[in-house]
């Protein structure tokens, strides 16, 4: 019910939604949005709308799955049936299972897992609306939910995708750019440790294009990282205001 556009970048070098190649979509972040969860956060990035909740650290059942020297991090990335154009069955797809794994592995390097041996922490991510780049936005928002839950962390993880569209390296692909473009490269990054914690790619890039893409993605992550910090600050301020 949608048709592919002929060009993704116009003669002025602007993208379909008017952005420049190195421009992020508008981002709105809120921390501490769910009452029951130990920590939670909400992100809107373009039309993406994603909730993350954290439960933990807590006891692990069955007990033989617990690890003697560290916390087990579990992660479920899940899309609401109404989040995409064609209704998605609520049963986890192969894509959702893979993304749950790589998101978990993108968050793990940020956490002092050894502080809570024999426990588990659950990260639940629900994509309420998807418009490209949901795995990256999920990492960004899940990282804040972990912080909100008081899980001790080395740094926040910020994530952002880059891609090649009409031959140009562009930041923060939206859905149509992801589907029609020549390459997609999601990346997660901890600025304080200069650490890439998620890196995937599919498409076709020369080594030179790849280096340019990674640099642009890291720039994007740094911008998002600042927004994460602002959102956390806003949360603590508002909590303090309530307490006073």
């Amino acid at each position, binding site marked *: 019910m949608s048709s592919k556009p002929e060009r993704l970048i116009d003669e002025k070098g602007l993208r379909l939604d008017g952005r420049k190649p190195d421009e992020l979509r508008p981002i709105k972040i809120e921390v501490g949005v769910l009452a029951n969860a130990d920590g939670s956060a909400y992100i809107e990035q373009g039309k993406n709308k994603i909730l993350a909740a954290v439960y933990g650290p807590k006891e692990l059942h069955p007990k033989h799955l617990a690890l003697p020297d560290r916390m087990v991090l579990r992660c479920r990335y*899940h899309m*609401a*049936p109404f989040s995409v154009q064609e209704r998605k069955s609520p049963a986890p797809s192969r894509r959702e299972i893979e993304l749950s794994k790589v998101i978990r592995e993108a968050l793990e390097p940020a956490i002092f897992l050894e502080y809570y041996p024999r426990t588990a922490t659950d990260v*639940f991510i629900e994509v309420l609306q998807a418009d490209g780049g949901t795995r990256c936005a999920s990492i960004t928002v899940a990282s804040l939910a972990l912080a909100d839950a008081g899980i001790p962390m080395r740094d926040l993880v910020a994530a952002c995708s880059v891609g090649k569209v009409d031959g140009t390296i562009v930041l923060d692909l939206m859905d149509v750019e992801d589907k029609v473009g020549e390459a997609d490269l999601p990346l997660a990054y901890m600025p304080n440790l200069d650490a890439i914690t998620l890196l995937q790619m599919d498409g076709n890039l020369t080594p030179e294009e790849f280096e340019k893409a990674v640099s642009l993605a890291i720039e994007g992550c740094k911008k998002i990282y600042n927004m994460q910090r602002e959102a956390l600050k806003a949360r603590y301020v508002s909590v303090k205001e309530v307490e006073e």
Partner: protein
Amino acid sequence: MTSTTVVRLKQQQISQLISKGKRLDGRGLRDYREIRVEQGIIEKAEGSARVLLGKTEVMAGVKIEFGQPFPDTPNEGVLTVNAELVPLASPTFEPGPPDENAIELARVVDRGIRESNAIDLEKLCIEPGKKVLVLFVDIYVLNHDGNLIDASALAALAALINTKVFNYEVEGGEIKIKPGYTPLPINNHPVAVTLAKINDQLVVDPWLEEEQIMDARITITTDNQGNICAIQKGGGGYFTPKQVFEAIQIAREKAVEIRRKLGWSK
């Protein structure tokens, strides 16, 4: 099933207050928590709504697809209601296929919509016996603080009211999408009202801690005309006939109140 002393004491307090006509959160026995409804929040869905009932938060989305009618109703579109108790909403929810609670929730909401004829399913028929519109109503519980049924029924109806159907025409057996949308026609506004029996008293809109100590609950869905279109008793206790008749009366009054508050009645 928490059983620490503190929890027990709090439960006793809730129960004793109710026997005096009071509730721990300050409400009267027949007061709803604050209800907030937002519509159209998921642009990619044909219809959507988010309902806050106190701290209980439920989202509903409507998707429309082409499909086949059921053999026994060849002239009607298909309505499918599904509910997911996703684990971010409560420490007691587990990932996995819908359990008995999620299935009951979806089926109670479904019956309210269906039996009140809120949607004219015959208008969703394209070619009898062959091609119809299929409406998927997906209920998504985001925070569980009690009375999921009423919140879900409100979210589902608000999402349906918000639903726009893409225009199409049938040419030589082929369906062609045309530009523009038409609102889904809504004929009725069923409202589900749930009462819990605690300490032999009926309380409206139980929150989570009340649900944990209630003997039983009853959900009564009434339509614009004040008629009853669906009932569901739940929980391991019972009601006397007198309590049931009292509950019906309260549910009808509360439904009128909610419909008026949300602008669903003249």
